[in-house]
């Protein structure tokens, strides 16, 4: 197991810092690694990279469609591009370019979407993209990764250098507790962060820490929740989901995303398609996600609370899922 003793309060770094550190190492090891940015290098932690590797960096200006198009072209030229901006615009604005120029040709381009989700805070709904997992996981060939902490983002960045197809790496703006040591990161392989037999919480990104805290609360009520970090949304780890369903028949999903089309939907697709086949018992799912509405400006924590992306919401969802399961 890769869980380290998490400190939930004293936060010093987040996934974007892990990406910034990882891309530096990757570029040093591999001269084919290039990073592209659209006037947000500080925000996506590429400023030091831009300074240290000027010949492996491309600044395209405020032009996210061009960003992905040029990345595709660099890949045609044999390079390994990482194209970064805010997720609201990358893939939010350049989805067609991603779909056709990158995914259709199965080019080894990674698009890096920073500042995803409500934790953007003050910038408000226009910048708080909550639809990007849905947008990306429907694209053929595209791998979708949402790291939960800096070490995992670092590991994912290095893993993506060796990955042969296109990928989307989703990052948050906020710092997160250090939950993993980054070792044992494997694309497509879910991570059990905490064992438990009464139910399973599947979480991704900033919600993983909250899932672990929810599991602590549930334990006080004598409920043993397994917590699984689904850092890879696509290809999804079918085995892990099937195993969880067969273990307890009670699943909670938690994501910083719209309730439609994200992690919860992906898990539900696996469950419904395997019920009566690989899954041998009735299984219920409760989803913790944003309930089909836009976010708003405010301090990140306050916004998360208002839109019910909290530890308490996960606990409540777990209790409800257990009640529902008992009805079957």
């Amino acid at each position, binding site marked *: 197991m890769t869980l380290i003793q998490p400190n939930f309060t004293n936060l010093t770094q987040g996934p974007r810092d892990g990406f910034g550190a990882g891309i530096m190492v990757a570029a040093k090891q591999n001269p084919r690694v290039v990073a592209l940015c659209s*006037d*947000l*290098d*500080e*925000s996506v932690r590429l*400023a030091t990279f831009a300074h240290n590797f000027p010949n492996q960096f491309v*600044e*395209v*200006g*405020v*032009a996210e*469609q*061009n960003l992905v198009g040029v990345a595709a072209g660099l890949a045609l030229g044999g390079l390994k591009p990482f194209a970064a901006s805010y997720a*609201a*615009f990358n893939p*939010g*604005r350049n989805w067609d370019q991603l779909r056709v120029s990158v995914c259709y040709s199965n080019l080894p381009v990674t698009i890096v979407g920073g500042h995803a989700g409500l934790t953007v*805070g*003050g*910038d*408000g*709904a*226009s*910048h708080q993209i909550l639809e990007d997992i849905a947008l990306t996981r429907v694209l053929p060939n595209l791998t979708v990764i949402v790291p939960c902490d800096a070490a995992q983002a670092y590991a994912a960045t290095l893993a993506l250098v060796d990955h042969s197809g296109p990928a989307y790496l989703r990052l948050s703006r906020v710092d997160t507790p250090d939950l993993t040591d980054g070792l044992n990161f494997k694309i497509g392989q879910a991570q059990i962060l905490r064992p438990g037999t009464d139910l399973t919480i599947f979480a991704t990104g900033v919600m993983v820490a909250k899932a672990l805290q929810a599991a602590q609360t549930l334990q006080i009520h004598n409920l043993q929740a397994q917590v699984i970090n689904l850092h890879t949304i696509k290809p999804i780890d079918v085995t892990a989901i099937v195993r969880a369903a067969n273990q307890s028949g009670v699943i909670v999903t938690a994501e910083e995303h719209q309730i439609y089309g994200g992690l919860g939907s992906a898990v539900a697709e696996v469950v419904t398609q395997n019920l009566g086949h690989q899954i041998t018992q009735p299984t219920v799912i409760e989803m913790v996600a944003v309930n089909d509405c836009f976010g*708003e*400006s*405010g*301090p990140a924590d*306050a*916004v998360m609370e*208002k839109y019910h992306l909290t530890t308490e919401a996960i606990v409540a969802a777990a209790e409800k899922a257990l009640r529902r399961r008992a009805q079957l």
Partner: protein
Amino acid sequence: MENLAAPQFSPDLVRLKYLATKIRMAIIKMVHQAQSGHLAGALGLADLYTALYFGALKHHPFDPNWSQRDYVLVSNGHTCPVWYATLAEAGYFPKVWLSRFRQLDSPLQGHPHFFPKIQDETEINQPVPGVENTSGPLGQGLSQAAGLALSLKRAQKPNVVFCFLSDGEHQEGQTWEAYMLAGQYHLTNLVPIIDHNNIQISGRIDQIMSVNPLPTKLRAFGWDVWQINGHDQLEFQKAIRLIKAGVRRPTAILAETISGRGVSFMENKFEWHGKIPSQAEAANAITELTTQLDNLNYDPHST
């Protein structure tokens, strides 16, 4: 004897300068209080916003949906502190709203949002009086404004549509798609106002990704360009008067501005695009602006 030291402004101009300085103070307070937001662009635009809303625009702050109004759309939504402060100063909504900029449940979002009508009873889902479009993601505003102008033109309505744009968002292809359309459809009722401050987030525009020369490019897209000093409020008002009186081709106002204008240590520094001033920096900025206000010797109750 003539006093050579003190510049002599017309009463109109003194009033405009007074209002712009007050708006700059409000901008500093909003961003400092919220501990987030964008100062440089907003400060640089204060003279233009004041000149527009206090003398050039056809509008009724107490009747924001007046059918004969000129429309103001904003494409560079991150500069909204200047829009909110100007609208409040003009009387569109109470000034106390400004202190809740970027706070939870506030109508004044970090980037402006527009709803055609009340969505539900919560304060945040009420339309913000005077805000006519949603923006934030750069490059979308001129298309919205062009569509609005086209609808007015087809309905043979005389309303004019102003649209504020930043120079940075001229790096977005969509901005040029909108210019092309407006040129093709001959939208002389659409007036883009370009904030040419030559900064963006990571540096000076001409070093990051040059958009220059804007006048040549715009002319090639079917536009005439009126280049002005973006801090000369009377020149700006004159440009608007003449454009409204009738132009041969769609005409854009290219305003040469100084980002961070009014606060000496912020002027022309791209680093201040989105930096939050410390307590001391905010205090120094307010002190500087207060001195400027006092030097105007303007009595707001004089008229």
